[in-house]
């Protein structure tokens, strides 16, 4: 029989409070939707198509902000503006 | 606890060849043929040029035979055999 030893967990307490996602919207009609473009190839096209669908089919309005680089976070200011103006923000990752 | 020991197997590999006394010596350099295996590194051929001259001048070596090696690739058996047949002693080089 082998005795037990106690070992310590090497991961960290996230320290990140579990936050609730803000309440869902009651649909898209009349809402302002913001996009953050991650500058990856074709993502601009995807956004353009989605914006067009949003406007023509869901009667929403869209705003697009472009991140300079895919792999660095969007500037705080870009976020602040979008949050101010929009009911829904859509971000992207991947390529 | 700290003084307890266990048995483990030695991980080190050793060649199976038992050492043989391979070192052979010459009675002197007078009239001998010396072979150089040039490792192809920069300047080694100059060093061989100078050594050739000095060995002949100072020690009466009769001639020097050279084989130039290709980079880090081992010298082929045929080349070694040909050098061994021609020379009384062989000098190799490594490093640059």
């Amino acid at each position, binding site marked *: 029989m082998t005795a037990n030893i106690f070992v310590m967990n*090497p991961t960290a307490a996230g320290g990140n409070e579990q936050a609730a996602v803000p309440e869902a919207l009651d649909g898209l009609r009349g809402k302002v939707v913001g996009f953050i473009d991650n500058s990856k190839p074709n993502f601009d096209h995807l956004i353009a198509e989605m914006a067009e669908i949003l406007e023509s089919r869901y009667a929403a309005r869209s705003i697009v902000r472009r991140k300079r680089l895919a792999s660095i976070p969007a500037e705080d200011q870009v976020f602040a503006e979008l949050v101010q103006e929009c009911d829904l923000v859509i971000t992207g*990752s*991947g390529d | 606890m700290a003084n307890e020991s266990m048995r483990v197997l030695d991980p080190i590999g050793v060649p199976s060849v038992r050492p043989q006394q391979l070192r052979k010596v010459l009675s002197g350099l007078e009239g001998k043929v010396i072979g150089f295996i040039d490792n192809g590194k920069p300047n080694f051929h100059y060093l061989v040029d100078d050594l050739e001259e000095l060995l002949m001048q100072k020690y009466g070596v009769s001639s020097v035979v050279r084989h130039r090696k290709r980079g880090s690739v081992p010298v082929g058996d045929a080349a070694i055999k040909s050098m061994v047949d021609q020379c009384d002693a062989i000098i190799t080089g490594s490093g640059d």
Partner: protein
Amino acid sequence: MAIEVCSTAFSGLGRSQAKALGYPDLPLAVVRHPFGSLSRAEIRWEAEECMGKIAAFAKQARNDRARPPGGGTDAVRLIAVADDAESVNLLFRERQWTDGLPIVPPTRERVEHMLSRSGYMPNEFIARVAPAFGEATAESIAVNAVMAGCDAEYLPVLIAAVEAISAPEFNLQGIQTTTNPSAVWLLVNGPIVSRLGMNSGINCLGQGNWANATLGRALHLVMQNIGGAIGGEMDRATMGQPGKYLFCCAENEAENPWQPVHVERGFSANDSVVTVIGAEGSLNLNTHSKDALEILRIFAETLVRPSGNDYFLCGEPWLIISPETANILSGEGLAKGDVKRSLWEQSKLPARRLTDVDLNLTRIRRIAELGEVTQDTMLPIATAAGSIGIVVCGGPGTHSMYIPSFGNTRSVSRKVRLNAYQTEP
């Protein structure tokens, strides 16, 4: 409200990071990967699909309000396991807490011993480590140091390294989550190098030295365990590189004809300093040239590659110069700054060597720095000559090394905090 659009390949990253940051319910709309190679018609189709999902998310009432608070990993600090190497390693591997190599079991005794001489309090906060932004305390770093096999004396070096990787300009989030093969190269300078017996000479980036091996490894374990970057989940590396196990050496200050890196960066020669560099790989620069100008030309031509993030994003390339070659350059009267300037000038890449797609990306990313980029633009490898890093490492030999950078990263140096006990001669 926020929704994230991810390509399939990144949905694991999106979900894991949202969860780690405390937003397990953040909606993700997933599109086909790689959408970069889809045609316009296919993109339209993906957009239709994706909008449908987004519209549904927008309406959906959250039905999972009763989620228990707190994540899972921090609930248990001590775990009981059978006291044999196989059981411990199996447990840690199952939980994805290792790099795949055997670890030293981080028992409370070992962790306490690791901390005992460091001068750090166990609960001392050091940094948050991306991408999960887990909290690195002296103790949680010490746990990973024990696992890696570090000696207690190494801990202050590791803690300084964790501070360094967490500096915003290092962009650890990018380094840890990219598809690029980016590792963290840990470079150590100052008196601590000889005190810990680190290798700065022959084979300094290779195996065989305990301090190099275990310090480099411990830093990557911290990045994985505290930073939460697990391969295939938040770590999206396409193939990665062996440097992701560890990438660590010291500068060969004794044979460096120039200022060592830490002095160049404003520290005193007597300070012990770590520098972290986001490295994409390592490329052997082998030339037997003994002529300074020719060496610089050969080096510069080797930097010029039409596929590197240094050019796409304007990076911070590093060169490890062998002592032999550094002495040839210095012998011709070249200061380190001269070498940097010459390399910077000679390594400008004609933009036409990039493919159209890559040139377009470069145009977007470097417009603020370079203005309009055309086929005729000569792209510098870095914003300024001074951004090229130069360090002298290694033993005899004509080999230098190019360490391309991840691009969106700047190296960071931090002084190692040593207490009186550790600085005793």
